[in-house]
């Protein structure tokens, strides 16, 4: 999968590395700012209040 991605990318190796880095940052940002906050409401629910 990643091998195929590497072959699909154009340019010399350093251009490919650059593109991959940009892609990686984009994916990480999407995870951190949208995906994880959305996932959080379903997992690790912590109760901090006292109630009867």
């Amino acid at each position: 999968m990643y091998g195929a991605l590497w072959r699909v990318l154009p340019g010399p190796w350093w251009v490919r590395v650059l593109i991959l880095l940009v892609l990686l940052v984009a994916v990480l940002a999407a995870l951190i700012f949208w995906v994880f906050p959305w996932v959080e409401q379903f997992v690790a629910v912590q109760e901090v209040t006292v109630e009867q």
Partner: protein
Amino acid sequence: MSAGPETAPSVPAVDGGRRSRREHERRRARRGRRTSVVGVLGELLITAGLVVLLYIVWQLWISEYLVGNEVKQQAGQLSQEWNEQAQETPTPSATPSPSTSATPEPSEDPEPVDTVIPVGTAPAVDKNFAILMVPRWGSDYARTIAEGVGTADVLDKGKLGHYPSTQMPGAVGNFAIAAHRMGHGGSLHHINELQLGDHIFVETADGWYQYSFRNLEYVHPTGVGVLDAVPQSPETPATERYITLTSCNPQYTSRERIIAYGVFDRFYPRDPSAPDKGAPAEIAATVNGAG
């Protein structure tokens, strides 16, 4: 005979080592060119594992930092608004506010002064009405306190939530608030590090209420006695002013609750004409830095 299983597979390798290696390389090249189902599956699984790890890192550190920062900025804005309000309304600056004019508070007096301590009216649910500042948790620690302990609108936003059944800051009785200890801003992350006498400040539009930390307690999730006007003593009529912080314990779980109690020391009125707007020296940097 015992060497049989070992030598048997190596026989072809020794026999036609070169040929087999060439064949192997050719096969590898062919496989590399076309992606195999197992290969893709493996890569997906490794990726999924990394994403799960990243989620944990995010929840423990990144999210806590981001949400905490957001709430801190919110607190700074709120404080700024109160300062502007105090500046606009001539009451506090021109004629010292009626509540404190009776006996002007000596600024150096460490004893609780017998001034009338202003007590706000209970705000609407989810409304930010106060700020918590605890120097023990860092000179930049400031978090908003909202009315109610709803998870989605208050606690999960990183704010502290005020139990509506308890009193307001400065009122005789108990001012009880809750917040997350891990994730969601982790506003009470270091609750267990409080030490006897540590100051806990609650800022409202009126000024700063100073409480001193007294002790920790661990209770079951149903231990609502901590919210009593005199904590754990429902029959006793309240004569003192308490603050109660509740969070989860052990950290990362919800099995128990950790409770921190403080007692009221004194009140610092907001005064736009005074240096640091009348804020206590201990948190003046926090107030100015945040505002």
